[in-house]
């Protein structure tokens, strides 16, 4: 198992510093959350990690490899999978095909193999489809396997995204707001899936989420960004009490609520509930 080390990561766009010398480490097998106000640079960070954006400076290392200048597909090949904040599925393909895409790097059939239906390609297809069905069941989308993604509701599409990322058999999973658009119960179910995925598959997870309850419940460690800078880091309980974090991100009410939920100790309160 390998750690993800982000050091001094800086990303600038014309006239805007989206990330400013940010650094953190995701320990192998842990769930690490990145939180922060809107526009703080969380997704930008994910985009650099997955090769969509190129860092202005700084470095990203995963295991022995330096990801900083790699194109997305090479990063994927190292076992880094992600979901997107805005759904990025193939709307006109079935759920099954969308999830099968996750198997791309694990399979080999090319134009010739698939076109001529060579025996190895057919065997490969059968094997991996079976696995995709398992993953779909795991995430809870198996009833939609045949449906084109565009026909599904928002929440279900989010789950399909997770299934697709899991289908890559990643070592590191980047989740960008995985429970957006889900209600309390559904969030909890998703949290279960994420926890189970880590346990069953032994992967590290980097999580961006605005639902503090989720973060409190899932994360081993939290990094807080604001205006592209790291303003806090530590365990969930630590950062949640950090006045800077409360000022910039949580607001007093939410902090109280999360606090309450946390101190209640139960696996409850994924919602910022007010009395």
């Amino acid at each position, binding site marked *: 198992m390998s750690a993800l080390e982000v050091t001094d990561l800086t990303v600038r766009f014309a006239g805007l510093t989206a990330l400013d010398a940010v650094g953190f480490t995701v320990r192998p097998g842990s769930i690490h959350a990145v939180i922060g106000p809107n526009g703080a640079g969380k*997704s930008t960070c994910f*985009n650099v990690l997955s090769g*969509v954006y190129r860092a202005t400076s700084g470095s990203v290392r995963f295991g022995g490899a330096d990801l900083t200048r790699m194109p997305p597909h090479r990063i994927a090949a190292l076992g880094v999978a992600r979901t*997107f*904040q*805005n759904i*990025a599925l193939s709307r006109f393909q079935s759920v099954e095909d969308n999830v099968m895409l996750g198997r791309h790097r694990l399979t080999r059939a090319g134009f010739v193999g698939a076109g001529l239906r060579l025996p190895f390609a057919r065997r490969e297809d059968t094997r991996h489809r079976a696995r995709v069905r398992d993953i779909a069941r795991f995430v809870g989308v198996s009833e939609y396997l045949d449906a084109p993604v565009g026909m599904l509701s928002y929440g279900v599409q989010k789950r399909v995204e997770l299934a697709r990322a899991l289908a890559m058999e990643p070592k590191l999973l980047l989740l960008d707001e995985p429970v957006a658009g889900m209600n309390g119960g559904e969030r909890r179910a998703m949290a279960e899936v994420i926890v189970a995925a880590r346990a069953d598959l032994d992967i590290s997870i980097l999580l961006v989420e605005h639902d503090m309850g989720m973060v409190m419940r899932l994360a081993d460690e939290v990094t807080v960004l604001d205006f592209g800078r790291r303003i806090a880091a530590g365990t969930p309980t630590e950062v949640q009490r950090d006045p800077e974090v409360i000022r910039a991100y949580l607001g007093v009410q939410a902090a109280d609520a999360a606090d309450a939920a946390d101190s209640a100790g139960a696996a409850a309160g994924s919602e910022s509930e007010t009395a």
Partner: protein
Amino acid sequence: MTTFIELLVNGVSVGSVYALIALGFVIIFKATEVVNFAHASLLLVGGYVIAILHEDIGFWPAVLAGVAGAAAVGAAVEFLVLRRSRAGDHQVLAIVTIGVDIVLTTELTRRIGTDVLAMGDPWQNRIVNIGGIGIAQTRIAALVTAATLIACFLMAFRYTSWGISMRAAAEDRETAALMGIRLSRVSMGAWAVAGALAAVAALFLTVFPTPGLDRSTSFVALKAFPAAILGGLDSTSGALAGGLIIGLTESLATGYQNDLTFLGRGIGEVAPFLVMIVILLIRPAGLFGTRELARV
């Protein structure tokens, strides 16, 4: 050296006509993201109306009638055909315009028959001498018209609600509808405008030094493709730049073709496309086009 300047001037003068045609493409593209293959036939409509009316009602009224007529046909195409298409896909709609073009062009060329129709324009074949270089008056008129129209549309797209409606509708029809934008009205408006522009372009395409409107006039519309794309398909000022670049390239490559024989004769036709490719390799969305966004 004079040859060079002469070719430059000639290139600019041809280019201004290309720019006018390209502007028509750009308007439709900006408003609907459809590549309009029927633009050539709208050109024929406009030109035809001007040509058959100018003797009876005079040149300027005929131009107005031509502009109105082509606008009406453009709007009718939108109303009768594109609006009914349930496929929202832009590429599919582009194919519909091919069908429309076949129908319209066949009917118009049938009407034009074997004639070469004069436009009855006031410029005739007068040449204006600028520093010893002759340039046709018609072409000066074309350049001025193109520049004016392009400036107007640039403003309109940027600053008017009409422009914003069009661009919003082009990008996301459903959400545009949610903003209260009347999609059908917007796209009909765009088609009407494109028709009107086609009529103006047709006028300058068929006056001196061309003898008049005939059935082959519409072929020239093809040359506006590289012009439109090179400037950036969604940029009005790009249409002007693109038109001029294509005109210049063509003129220079033709004028110097005897020095370029190693490329084969007739390179004048190919050169604009080569220039287009080179520019697109450097700027994949054309000189002034908006780059596709890439963020997730």
